[in-house]
């Protein structure tokens, strides 16, 4: 598993991230789950494996928009 973390102070739309990954041009869409901790203001997006640099850039955009 590979976990990508982001700072998120407001509650993100986790299902929109799933949908965004599924509908994106990412090569690896194997998202497992998202977890947001309000206290830590931390969002974790967990994939089954490490993303390529291009996929990571697309994921960054999806998370930014959610």
């Amino acid at each position, binding site marked *: 598993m590979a976990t990508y973390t982001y700072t998120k102070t407001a*509650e993100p739309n*986790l*299902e929109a991230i*799933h949908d965004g990954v599924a509908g994106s041009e990412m090569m690896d869409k194997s998202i*497992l*789950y*998202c*977890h*947001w*901790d*309000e*206290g830590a203001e931390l969002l974790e997006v*967990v994939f089954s494996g490490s993303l390529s640099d291009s996929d990571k850039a697309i994921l960054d955009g999806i998370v930014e928009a959610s």
Partner: protein
Amino acid sequence: MVETDGIQTDPKTSATTTVIQGSEETEDTTTSATYVEAYRFSPTLDVAKYKVDFYYALTNSNGSYNVSGRLQIDDTTTISETTTDVFTDLYHGIGGTYFFNNTTPGTHNFDFDFQRGAGGTAKIRSKRVILTKVVE
């Protein structure tokens, strides 16, 4: 019992006990369909019997799906577990009491875990645990 700053004293025997509490009121959300940890409380405990009072509140962003939560000690002893249907984003509170007979001194982990059902986003908040050392 008389309580002062978390220390309880029996006025007849002068025996003392301790109240320890941990809580996280903020919300955690997940799309995981397997348990993930929302809050860990790690007090240092004596060899003693402890009364464990706990509470947590669960919901799902989509009322068509259920949500599960549990409270475990040291990742092995499950002292509370529930799966419940909910109305969308309306929290369902779970609370109870458990007697923990601690035979190993030192740090112990009290974990609040949660997961969603087949869909939606699971949410948990108001994770609270209070330990009261029982004077025997």
